[in-house]
């Protein structure tokens, strides 16, 4: 172990607080989502699997080996997504904190597998350019892990196809700034696209709803002329 107990205790609290903050800021639903923070070159603390962030204690966070995430100690059973956190930490030594979640507006672009263009200077600075979409893979698979690592190259965030978003920072505060700007930028993008599609000048959710409903006939089928949905 190349870290002292005091640092570990501090980071345990950081990871506990990160889960609570994700919930408070509506960036996660229930127990779905996970965070990790680096302890040293080959170890990280992660959130446990399937437990709610409010009742978790700092001592519940397990220590996971980055070079072999199947190895873990202390705390409770780590998140099944730990392989992705480990792969990013291994590929990117400057990254010390990672967040994987399914915020509502990020999920829209992830489900459409559409990259998010740079929406602001802040996004450019924090994310490092447009946000790409990683290749689709079933949860827990090598395909999903490799797709995420590839999409993160030179970026601090990427979408995971039909799944959610992955964000990484030099520390947890920065990782949080990134997930916040991602959700805000996705919302702005949806607003802009709605106004473009409808020709209106003021956005409302109802405007988007009406546009959506107008694309279906009375039997709930897509009206001809609309592109057929592509299968993965």
């Amino acid at each position, binding site marked *: 172990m190349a870290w002292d107990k005091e640092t570990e205790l501090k980071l345990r609290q950081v990871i506990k607080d990160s889960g609570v903050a994700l919930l408070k800021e509506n960036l996660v*639903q*229930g127990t*779905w989502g996970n965070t990790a923070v680096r302890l040293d070159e080959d170890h990280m603390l992660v959130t446990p699997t399937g437990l709610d962030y409010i009742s978790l204690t700092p001592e519940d966070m397990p220590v996971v080996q980055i070079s072999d995430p199947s190895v873990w100690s202390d705390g409770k059973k780590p998140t099944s997504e730990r392989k992705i956190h480990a792969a990013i930490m291994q590929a990117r030594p400057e990254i010390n904190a990672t967040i994987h979640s*399914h915020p*509502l*507006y990020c*999920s*829209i*672009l*992830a*489900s*459409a*597998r*559409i990259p998010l263009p740079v929406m602001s200077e802040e996004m450019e600075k924090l994310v490092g350019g447009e946000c790409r979409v990683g290749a*689709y893979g*079933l*949860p827990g698979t090598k395909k999903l892990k490799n797709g995420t690592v590839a999409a993160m190259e030179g970026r601090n965030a990427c979408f995971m*196809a*039909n*799944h959610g978003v992955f964000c990484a920072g030099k520390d947890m505060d920065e990782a949080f700034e990134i997930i916040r700007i991602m959700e805000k930028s996705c919302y702005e*993008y*949806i607003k802009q*696209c*709605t106004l*473009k*599609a*409808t020709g209106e000048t003021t956005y409302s*959710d109802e405007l*988007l*709803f*009406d*546009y*959506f*409903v107008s*694309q*279906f006939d*009375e*039997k*709930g089928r*897509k009206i001809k002329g609309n*592109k057929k*949905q*592509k*299968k*993965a």
Partner: protein
Amino acid sequence: MEKIVETILQYAQKLVAEGVVGDKDMISMRSGLNYMYVTKAGVKLADLKEEDVIKLLIFKVDKEYLYHAEIYKERADIHAICQCYPKWVMPVAKAGATIPAVLDDMAQIVGPSCKTADDDVHSILKTLKGRNSCLVKNSGCITSGRTLDEAYTCVLVLDKASRCFVASSVIGENKIINGFEARLMRFVYKKKYSKKNQQNLSQLEEGEAQKESSAKEEGEA
């Protein structure tokens, strides 16, 4: 307060806190084979009190409770139902469309798709065949499960999947998870969580059995 009533009140609060309710939401839980506890029609979940959760015989209910009663009669596997009106589900229900597997958690928790039924009991039972959730034309959604937690989770997932389905219409189209992978995820999820839910259910049934046994003892005394 009875445990089952407490559970209903707790999940009503959770649904309200998640912002996935409208004005006419109703949740219920099965009690034994022939009864259900249900929230009173016309009472908003946000205003729900202990006395607003009533016990009804599923064979004799007013029309407001018909959907719940008929589902319990038809489906022995269902122990809890949420009838909700989440904001983003409403346009899909209005369009009468089917939500495809747009997200992994949709495929796992709800299934490879969620269809819209007509607003009548036969159509709802037919649409729910082999499934745990459906939308109701020009209305909201009905979700169910072996526990109320399962039905509640389905409401959250359906609301998020609907948001993706609706908003994707202005940015392109959803790329749908292929059928095999969606069914595989559903299978793995059901296997993984069936044990957990079965435990919850056993605890609940144990509670009911204890209650019945103490009531019997009191009667005998």
